[in-house]
């Protein structure tokens, strides 16, 4: 944990001058045992386009892209994601939260194809959302502001 004496990044840039770097985008990264199978699942059910590396061998890395978002996959041979879903009071434990538009149409197209942890409903903070568990056990929330 940080100590109280640590210099904050805002202090650093105000003392040293210079432009605060801009954080442009973020990709979630999931360790998985089988990258090729994961790419196929995301392509088939969630409309991603996937790329595996190295291209001609057993993939050790993958990138999946759709619209403005990216998910990266890293291979761990016999990886099994721990199931944390029920460890939290008052709601499940999530791995990624995807903001989107057109969630009602999207829910209709995926609800009979994938494992739905929570059906489409309006959360108390106003967003429409539903929860999917992927083939490796990652819990993904899809959300659209009401």
């Amino acid at each position: 944990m940080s100590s109280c004496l640590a210099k904050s990044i805002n202090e650093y840039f105000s003392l040293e001058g210079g432009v605060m770097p801009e954080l442009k985008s973020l990709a979630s990264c999931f360790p998985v045992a089988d990258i090729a199978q994961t790419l196929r699942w995301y392509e088939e059910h969630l409309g991603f386009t996937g790329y595996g590396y190295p291209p001609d061998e057993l993939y050790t890395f993958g990138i999946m892209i759709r619209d403005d978002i990216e998910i990266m996959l890293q291979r761990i041979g016999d990886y099994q994601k721990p199931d944390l879903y029920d460890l939290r009071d008052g709601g499940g434990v999530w791995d990624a939260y995807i903001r989107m538009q057109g969630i009602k149409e999207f829910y209709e197209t995926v609800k009979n194809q994938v494992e739905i942890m929570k059906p489409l409903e309006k959360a108390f903070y106003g967003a429409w959302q539903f929860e999917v568990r992927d083939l490796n056990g990652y819990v993904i929330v899809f959300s659209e502001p009401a």
Partner: protein
Amino acid sequence: MDKMPEYASIVPVFSVADVGATMNWYQTHLGFASEPFPAQEPYLFAILFRDHIEIMLQRVENYQKPETYGVRAGGVWDAYIRLSQVKELYDAIKDEVTIIKPLRQQPYGAWEFEVKDPNGYVLVFSEVNQ
């Protein structure tokens, strides 16, 4: 006819034992603002945000993230963040945070460094030079 479904952004969600301490670390070292829920401690949830990116925290009591970094050649990451001026960010934080891999150029061209946050989540900061 409603809008065509379109994904707008992805937010990684980290399970942590102490949401407030994690918020402070991200504020101090990486300049993230935060919106916790509820408004008073102990927080159950928080959204951290800066520029174009967000990270969510969910409180899981006594949670300890399993250590997986060494299980894969090349490390195991939790979030990959693209930015401008990666060298400036590196210089600003390298003596204040746990650096897993120092700033270096990868074979695929990106300049990257890796930070471990106080809960063990590994963040990669990356810039592709023109």
